């Protein structure tokens, strides 16, 4: 059995396990391949993220980029791609390159550069999850990095102003979404009936666009006109990231259904009784499961459950 693996990444909201596309990709791949990951979301009590989130820690090994994390998981025999032919593997690489070139600039722009979106949604959300005083600095830095990346990779002449660059990247993103929709067609996942690396990447990029409620949403509106992509995201969210009525807790393995039901019942009772305190709940396994309720009452958003399973 492999050593226990821990993933630190940004947390989620609006029905998603994470808002950060790369974190979502890694989480989705872990679910698809059955890798037992402990997911630790970054919040105020963690030490400051160094900017290369998500990070996988396994014993002494620290790995930081999604591609490398996925390679590591594959070497540990958690491989979601073993049924793919060589040509399909090649197609995977090509489509991932397409996503990064065409869709990612527009995604970064929607989150970090578009002034209304950034000031009303992104910055407060990230700032609330970073410890003071870093919360004053880090969102600004992430925004500047995003703008830099967009301008350096897409902003050469003859596009001289930011508005022209914006128009071009949104056009490219919409074209990319159309291409993905055509490629997906009516099948459940991109390569047949089982999800693979490509599905993880596409999900990671599309789900934030689809779910997060921004004031300026041209990309989301375009995505909503492609029903097969919306259905794709929803399917993965309901099958692999089971969301309860309590909020946005999620579980690593589907086979922990029994523990899940037990915990849910206990959580409902304890949230109402123990507002704002730590509660430990004994489970059927050897581990104690600490529960932290941030706010009181049932059906609260932002309830975080942290635990680990062997």
């Amino acid at each position: 059995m492999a050593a226990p693996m821990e993933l630190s990444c940004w947390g989620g909201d609006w029905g998603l396990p994470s808002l950060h596309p790369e974190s979502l990709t890694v989480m989705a791949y872990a679910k698809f391949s059955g890798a037992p990951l402990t997911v630790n979301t970054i919040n105020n009590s963690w030490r400051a993220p160094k900017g290369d989130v998500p990070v996988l820690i396994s014993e002494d090994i620290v790995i930081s980029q999604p591609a490398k994390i996925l390679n590591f998981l594959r070497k540990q025999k958690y491989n979601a791609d073993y049924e793919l032919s060589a040509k399909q593997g090649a197609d995977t690489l090509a489509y991932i390159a397409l996503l990064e070139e065409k869709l990612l600039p527009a995604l970064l722009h929607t989150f970090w550069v578009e002034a209304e979106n950034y000031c009303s949604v992104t910055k407060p959300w990230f700032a609330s999850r970073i410890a003071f005083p870093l919360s004053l600095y880090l969102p600004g830095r992430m925004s500047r990095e995003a703008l830099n990346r967009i301008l350096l990779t897409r902003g050469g002449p003859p596009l001289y102003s930011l508005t022209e660059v914006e128009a071009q990247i949104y056009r490219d993103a919409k074209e990319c979404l159309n291409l993905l929709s055509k490629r997906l067609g009516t099948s459940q996942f991109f390569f047949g009936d089982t999800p693979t690396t490509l599905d993880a990447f596409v999900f990671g990029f599309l789900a934030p666009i689809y779910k997060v409620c921004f004031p300026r949403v041209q990309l989301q509106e375009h995505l909503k006109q492609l029903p097969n992509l919306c259905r794709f995201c929803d399917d993965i969210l309901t099958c692999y990231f089971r969301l309860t009525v309590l909020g946005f807790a999620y579980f690593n393995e589907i086979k922990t259904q029994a523990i899940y039901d037990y915990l849910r019942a206990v959580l409902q009772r304890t949230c109402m009784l123990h507002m704002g305190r730590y509660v430990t709940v004994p489970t059927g396994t050897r581990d104690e499961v600490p529960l932290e309720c941030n706010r009181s009452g049932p059906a609260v958003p932002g309830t975080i459950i942290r635990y680990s399973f062997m």
Partner: protein
Amino acid sequence: MSLVAEAFVTQLAATEPWPENAALYQQLKEEQILLSDNASSLAVQAFLQMCNLPVRVVCRANAEYMSPSGKVPFIHVGNQVVSELGPIVQFVKAKGHSLSDGLDEVQKAEMKAYMELVNNMLLTAEITHPRYGSPYPWPLNRILSYQKQWEVRRKMKAIGWAGKTLEQVLEDVDQCCQALSQRLGTQPYFFNKQPTELDALVFGHLFTILTTQLTTDELSEKVKNYSNLTAFCRRIEQQYFEGHDKDSSTTVAARSAKRSLLR
């Protein structure tokens, strides 16, 4: 360009047939041209050859500055100047020549995806091998080359390649070549029997990697591992470049006749 401006230019382009004196501008061969620019230029030439559109290649030291987008190669057709492979393909399409009409939607999606892969991996890998001489006198040649390096380094940092070692870059190139090789299989071209933009692009990059002399041979060794890719390059070279009328000092065909793919 806004949508209206693009539509206007397309309209203009569609009205005139392809002239005889179209010219393709690139930088000087021996001293100046970067690996990635050479690859792009070769890709455009291959594409135009595949469409049977005659073009002559002109080498100028200040080609970068002449180009409307700052990038080479660019073509000068009639009274219009268009740079980079993407816009050139669209321009040629407006004139009524297109290589990818026979593809269905899914294949077109795949083609675009593979083109991005090639651009992503091979282009940036080529940039990490610096080779920027200059025909300008000192100190201008120093300044320009530092400027170019600094610009490239900024771009690498923005897309996260700054931390990559040479081995990682070579590994990425290997992965890309493997993907291309698997996609090509035993077919003559990437999409059945007809060459498309993707074939032109891949040819441009692979031929440049295989035939340009660098300080190390690692890049070309990686490509040589895949025999169907080298066969593909040779086939395109024979079909589209050796029958070309030679304007001896400036065409690729003359140059390729002096080099061999097997070295």
